[in-house]
């Protein structure tokens, strides 16, 4: 089993900025730090942060306004949550089910556990 497989730094930064948008650090419509400001803050190569911003733009999370910088898209929060839901179902949930099967946890037990968890 593969325990640890980390995505490239530019994708980690894209996820980090997505987290910050979800946490409200950068609100929809607000300007995010420039590529250079962000690179200095997290001590990372400029081109790497550029790639993260490009990626976020292609995902519809950031908008680039020429000469002004990058802004959080109005529907960024919904876009991030939709992406994360998709990633959860296609990867984390699959891994979780795989472990459940290996250990002989039944679907009924899982459903019961999840119901209990939601009540907490």
């Amino acid at each position, binding site marked *: *089993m*593969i*325990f*640890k*497989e*980390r*995505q*490239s*730094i*530019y*994708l*980690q930064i894209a996820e980090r900025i997505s987290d910050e948008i979800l946490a409200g650090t950068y609100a929809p419509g607000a300007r995010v730090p420039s590529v*250079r400001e962000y*690179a*200095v803050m*997290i*001590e*990372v*190569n*400029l*081109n*790497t942060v550029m*790639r993260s911003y490009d990626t976020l733009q292609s995902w519809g999370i950031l908008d680039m306004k020429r000469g002004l910088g990058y802004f959080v898209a109005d529907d960024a929060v919904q876009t991030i949550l939709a992406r994360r839901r998709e990633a959860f179902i296609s990867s984390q949930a699959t891994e979780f089910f795989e472990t459940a099967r290996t250990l002989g946890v039944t679907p009924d037990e899982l459903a019961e556990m999840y119901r209990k968890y939601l009540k907490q």
Partner: protein
Amino acid sequence: MIEVKNLTVGYSNPANTPEIFEHSNDYDSPEIVLRNISLKFESGKVYGLIGRNGAGKTTLLNCISGLIWRPSKKKVFLDGMPLSNGNPDMTSKIFYAIDTTPTLHIRVDKFAKKLSLYYPDFSMECFNECVEMFHINYSEYLDRLSLGQKKMTYLSYAFASNASHIILDEPTNGLDITAMRTLRKLIASNMTDDRTIIISTHHINEISSLLDHIVILNNRKVAFDHSVNETGRVLSFVEADKETDKQNALYSMSSAYGNRLILPNTSGIDSEIDYELLYEAVLDDSKKINALF
């Protein structure tokens, strides 16, 4: 941009200093320090140069900075022109912070003034910002500074020089944790599209987040020369239990969990590079790794 074309360096003269050869009939001779090296250092990129002790890193840096130079041997090109160390227009385009910084009895700020005569774009403002970030007292004398402080002072000179090519030999030697972070911030903030930064280091993990490109020297040759983007796209670096995927691995190293593996990347998602693992894999069998690129 600095370009190196078929560079061979060896010892042959009575003075026992390395010099550039036209070519060599015997690349395996112990006299040879670098054998037939060709590399390109492009503008707008940060290069990491790694290799064992004695792999030839410093010799290579000495050549691309013009410290080792022979007018008749055109092997190193600066922005397309053969490098000439007698030409101030060229030498002012390169700042080379050597590993063992010279010990001079001169004040930190006075030496900056002297350097500003060689570097027409030298910025005192940038220099003052740098020494402040590193907490260096600029009225101190260079020869009274500790190894780490000397390193930081030379790094400050390097960035203040505004040279388009900044070459740093082992910049992290002697730096404490805070100074290391300052160095990373300085590189991130001073990088521009028309600047090339070349960093040689043994402590690759400390500067890996800044790199665009990785060059590994081994056995006096270039063993690896690929961009970070390409490396993460072609190779996948994972940690797995003892049984998984070991037979498909290009390289494996045992770890607390089982094994750290390099696999061909088939996921379509770029992987984060495990530099230590990549380095060991390249030293072990560079052909196997390079075959995937």
